[in-house]
């Protein structure tokens, strides 16, 4: 087990093993290569076991990793946490925005987030659903989601972590601007972000003559659910695809950068 203050050393990961396998599909290879590239910038992906994850998050961000997570599939959990850390690093956020990782079964989704903690006296937590994260094969729905367009193209477990952190970021922006949190805010700030990003997108050749609904559909079907989900799906899209993300995702990402950096 890693001791406090000891540096993490790279471990052979699932992604590294996958790219060595000549029998995998092109899309799976592409995903594995993206994960390897991301791991250079996201140190948590180098943790080798649950104990290291607990120490890493505690030492670097004061974030608690609940023991219940130890029953889940390690590499999938680590990958999702990588997406969370990617957002913290990308937006230079304080880890105190997030208090803990925990497990929660009561939701028909692989992950969910509790936000607004500063108002309701509860921690901001990101939850792993054990019905999905107990085995890697139970998370195939995320890959299928990217294929069917329910989630952004090329997105997967890593991007789902980024998506969840996106909800906490939106909550933080609402607090910064209005001193409230996003539910009481009635998505006012989410609307400002999406509307201004839409206006910028419309002024580009890629977005010209498209409606907001069309642009949201280009991100994913789930982006159509609400403004909050649109922002988090845009984050997922940008993390997965960078400059190849949809035009609205790119503009939402820029707006978030302007707000937070």
């Amino acid at each position, binding site marked *: 087990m890693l001791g406090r203050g000891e540096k993490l050393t790279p471990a052979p990961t699932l992604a590294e093993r996958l790219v060595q396998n000549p029998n995998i599909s092109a899309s799976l290879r592409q995903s594995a290569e993206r994960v390897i590239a991301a791991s250079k910038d996201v140190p948590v992906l180098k943790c080798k076991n649950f104990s290291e994850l607990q120490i890493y998050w505690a030492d670097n961000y004061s974030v608690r990793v609940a023991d219940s997570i130890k029953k889940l599939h390690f590499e999938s959990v680590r990958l999702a946490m990588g997406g969370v850390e990617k957002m913290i690093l990308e937006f230079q956020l304080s880890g105190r925005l997030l208090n803990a990782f925990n497990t929660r079964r*009561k939701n*028909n989704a692989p992950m*969910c987030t509790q936000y607004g903690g500063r108002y309701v006296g509860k921690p901001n937590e990101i939850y792993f659903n054990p019905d999905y994260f107990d085995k890697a094969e139970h998370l195939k729905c995320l890959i299928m989601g990217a294929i069917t367009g*329910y989630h952004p193209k090329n997105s997967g477990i890593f991007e789902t972590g980024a998506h969840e952190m996106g909800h906490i970021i939106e909550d933080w922006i609402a607090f910064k601007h209005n001193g409230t949190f996003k539910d009481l805010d009635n998505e006012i700030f989410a609307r400002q972000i999406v509307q201004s990003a839409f206006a910028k997108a419309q002024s580009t050749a890629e977005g010209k003559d498209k409606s907001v609904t069309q642009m949201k559909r280009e991100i994913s079907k789930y982006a159509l659910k609400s*403004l909050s989900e*649109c922002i988090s799906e845009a984050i997922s899209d940008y993390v997965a695809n960078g400059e190849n993300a949809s035009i609205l995702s790119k503009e939402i990402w820029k707006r978030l950068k302007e707000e937070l950096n």
Partner: protein
Amino acid sequence: MYKFWEYDFDFFEKYCNYNEDGDLIGVKDDAPNDFKKAFEEYMEEEKKYQAEAEAEGYLIS
């Protein structure tokens, strides 16, 4: 994933209603019955989830 979201993008373009924010708020009267039924089932489950989320704190997935 709910069956509703498994329909092709064309269905979402042709048969859904959206508010001014571009959020999906319903299906059109002329939508195929199976699409309407899938939407109703999704909404029923979503309401249950929302009630649960509100009872237990501010939860979003």
